[in-house]
């Protein structure tokens, strides 16, 4: 089974091809009336095909299929089915090696073919002692880290595919949607399974592409198309850093294979250490882009323009955690670059706090969750920054479950309200959509950090690691980061229960027409919700602290943390009392946040926050407008750098660069003027002057040509006389 891991990405790829081709060639063109002009994916060829079908005597070629696409059943089977097959193979492979096997450090690599064979070159550019292989294989690798990612990516991916069947069922672009979603699964699995940086990058770019495609899924809506472009462009910035980092790794080690690179760095770190800080920072820029960290987080809230299952799968559970996965994968590098670690920790902590404060006042149900995601990703990077990579990955896993549950729950709410996303127009939905309510509530309790639910353990593990972290030269930093993390946890609990209060509790604030249409979602949507809610409760028990062998996930992931030669990393064994007091503090803060939100929004019907907003309009407005970061980017980068820079460049071009051609033209003009003068006066002067001289001479000589023979004879006689005279005289 472990030899079949290459099949895991292949199934969704096949699904993508089937869904995409069936959709492309089976989709009918829009009606000539243009009522559905937006859906013109059919293209020109299909128009002709449909017209010929009409000619062949099928007057009803354009039948009532606009609301329901053709081959919907096929898409419904192929889409989730391909991911189900991947899931089965993935779990088969994982259990083939066995959890114990992974914990003991077993891994398995399947090499498909040699991709970039550059041959062996010891001499070029690497540090002394490098391998110098210079080739890159298409190889898939399963070890404990990729096994963990694989498990939840395939499983959550499958659940969300199932959910999509219900959620997108009425959409005309159903086949396109599943094609993209399958393509995303393919790319994500390549990212997770890739055994080298280049294959990781292939998956990295693939998920970026699918993210773009799915954010802009409703491409006829301008804001969705714009959000897609924004995500793509912002990710380019990150990817630029990432690929520079990969180049650095390649230059330094002469290979991109994870096992070799990290093995070399861990076994003999000294020659590499000076370069690793730069490489780590570049890799982290990539992680910042993909995982929406400050200052590159701006695309993620806008990415909510995509369909809600997409937000759940790509922009909460899987793709955005790729950055954390990558940093955890490169933990050997990061541990050798303490300065880079400080940057990672500080960016993570700042992003966590920053996004959480924005989340406090947002009114769009998906926006709140989006900022929550950014905040939680900050948490994960904070964990990586303090060296707690397995704790970070633990939170990635639990986050995948509860955040997917939250997003899918939000999707269910939006579905029930026929597209309403403003929480000010919701309320009192608990009784009307109970399954959605209960699952959403469980997930909210989890993310808030209520004791004995999943995120309680994962966040607690992070906070404990932060509390006990040590940064050389900055003894105060861990305590500050801990305070930020704790405060953010309180904010998280607050904004999540503000969301729950406004959405599910109280009375309905929308129109009565909306109220009449509220309906619980079909079971294809509620069953995944329940599964995810269940996982949100139990998934934390793989990382229970204090108890002997309670931290199973830590043990499971321990092999990826290669011991580095000559680097003494003390493992903190905090006392039981310290652990418990940290837990107590976290629980208190979480419960406080929940209570405050309940008190203000459910019990007090929002009067206190309203009051506060009036008291501090500046603060409220700043938070509501997200610290004006988008506006600042708009001003600085779009108008300033892009447009202004464009204008400046145009000026430079018009004035400075054009000086060269213009100057050249002027010089040429001058030169040609001189040349013309030369030509006119010197060359022509010579020619004309010669001619004029000749003419003058000939005017003289022609006088001799009188036409009278006697004159000629006289001259001849005279000449003869002269010749004879001369002859006689000078004989």
């Amino acid at each position, binding site marked *: 089974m472990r030899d079949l891991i290459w099949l895991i990405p292949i199934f969704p790829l096949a699904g993508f091809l089937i869904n995409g081709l069936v959709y492309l060639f089976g989709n009918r063109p829009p009606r000539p009336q243009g009522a559905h002009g937006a859906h013109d994916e059919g293209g020109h060829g299909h128009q002709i095909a449909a017209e010929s079908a009409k000619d062949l005597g099928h007057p009803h070629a354009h039948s009532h299929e606009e609301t329901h696409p053709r081959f919907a059943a096929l898409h419904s089977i192929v889409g989730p089915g391909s991911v189900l097959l991947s899931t089965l193979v993935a779990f088969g492979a994982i259990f083939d090696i066995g959890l114990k096997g992974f914990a003991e450090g077993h891994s398995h690599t399947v090499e498909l073919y040699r991709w970039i064979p550059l041959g062996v070159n010891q001499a070029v550019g690497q540090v002394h002692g490098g391998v110098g292989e210079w080739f890159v294989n298409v190889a898939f690798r399963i070890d404990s880290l990729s096994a963990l990612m694989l498990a939840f990516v395939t499983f959550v991916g499958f659940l969300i595919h199932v959910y999509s069947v219900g959620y997108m069922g009425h959409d005309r672009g159903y086949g396109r949607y599943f094609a993209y979603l399958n393509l995303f699964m393919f790319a994500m699995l390549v990212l997770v399974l890739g055994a080298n940086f280049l294959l990781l990058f292939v998956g990295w770019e693939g998920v970026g592409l699918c993210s773009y495609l799915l954010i802009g899924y409703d491409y006829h809506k301008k804001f969705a198309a714009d959000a897609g472009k924004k995500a793509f462009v912002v990710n380019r910035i990150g990817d630029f850093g990432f690929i520079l980092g990969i180049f650095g790794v390649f230059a330094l080690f002469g290979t991109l294979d994870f096992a070799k690179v990290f093995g070399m760095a861990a076994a003999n770190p000294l020659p590499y250490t000076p370069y690793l800080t730069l490489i780590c920072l570049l890799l982290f820029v990539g992680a910042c882009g993909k995982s929406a960290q400050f200052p590159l987080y701006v695309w993620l809230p806008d990415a909510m323009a995509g369909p809600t299952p997409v937000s759940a799968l790509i922009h909460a559970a899987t793709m955005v955690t790729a950055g954390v996965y990558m940093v955890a994968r490169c933990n050997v590098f990061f541990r050798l670059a303490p300065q880079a670690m400080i940057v990672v920790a500080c960016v993570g902590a700042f992003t966590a706090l920053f996004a959480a404060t924005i989340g406090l006042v947002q009114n769009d149900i998906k926006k709140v969750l989006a900022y929550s995601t950014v905040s939680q990703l900050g948490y994960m990077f904070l964990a990586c920054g303090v060296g707690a990579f397995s704790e970070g990955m633990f939170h990635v896993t639990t986050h995948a479950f509860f955040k997917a549950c939250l997003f899918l729950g939000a999707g269910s709410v939006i579905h029930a309200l026929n597209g309403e996303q403003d929480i000010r127009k919701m309320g009192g939905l608990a009784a009307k959509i109970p399954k959605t309510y209960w699952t959403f509530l469980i997930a909210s309790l989890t993310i808030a950090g209520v004791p004995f639910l999943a995120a309680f353990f994962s966040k607690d593990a992070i906070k404990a690691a932060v509390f006990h972290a040590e940064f050389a030269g900055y003894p105060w930093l861990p305590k500050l980061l801990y305070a930020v993390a704790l405060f953010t946890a309180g904010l998280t609990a607050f904004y999540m229960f503000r969301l729950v209060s406004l959405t599910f509790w109280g009375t309905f604030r929308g129109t009565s027409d909306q109220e009449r249409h509220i309906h619980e979602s079909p079971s294809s949507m509620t069953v995944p919700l329940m599964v995810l809610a269940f996982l949100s409760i139990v998934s934390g028990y793989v990382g229970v602290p204090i108890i002997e062998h309670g931290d199973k996930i830590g043990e499971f992931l321990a092999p990826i943390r290669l011991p580095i030669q000559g680097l003494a990393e003390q493992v903190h064994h905090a006392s039981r009392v310290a652990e418990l007091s940290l837990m107590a503090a976290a629980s208190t803060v979480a419960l406080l946040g929940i209570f405050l939100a309940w008190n203000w929004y459910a019990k007090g019907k929002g009067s206190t926050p309203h009051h506060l907003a009036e008291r501090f309009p500046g603060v409220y407005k700043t938070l509501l407008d997200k610290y004006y970061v988008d506006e600042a980017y708009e001003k600085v980068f779009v108008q300033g750098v892009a447009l202004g820079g464009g204008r400046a460049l145009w000026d430079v071009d018009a004035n400075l660069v054009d000086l060269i051609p213009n100057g050249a033209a002027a010089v040429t003009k001058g030169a040609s003027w001189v040349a013309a003068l030369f030509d006119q006066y010197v060359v022509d002067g010579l020619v004309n002057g010669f001619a004029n001289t000749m003419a003058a001479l000939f005017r003289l000589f022609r*006088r*001799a*040509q*009188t*036409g*009278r023979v*006697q004159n000629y004879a006289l001259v001849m*006689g005279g000449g003869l006389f002269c010749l004879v005279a001369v002859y006689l005289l000078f004989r």
Partner: protein
Amino acid sequence: MTITINHYLVVSLLLFAIGFFGVLVRRNFLTVLTSIELMLNAVNLNLVAFSRRLSDLTGQVFSIFVITIAAGEAAIGLALTISLFRQRRTLNVEEASTMRG
């Protein structure tokens, strides 16, 4: 008084000078032609005189040759005279100056 070759030469020179003078100064085309005949005959006299002096018949042969050519020349000259007269109604050579440069 013995007639020496010098006498012949002087006569020949005088004849030639008179002919040349006629060619140069006379305006009538016919007169010019006649003057040319004079010059030719002066040359003939010269040739014959030297032929006799040197006892070489070549000079006499040449003079006969010149006479023959002179006949042709006279024929062409007269033809030209007629042609000129038809064109210009005059025999004044000063009028016949269309070859002026």
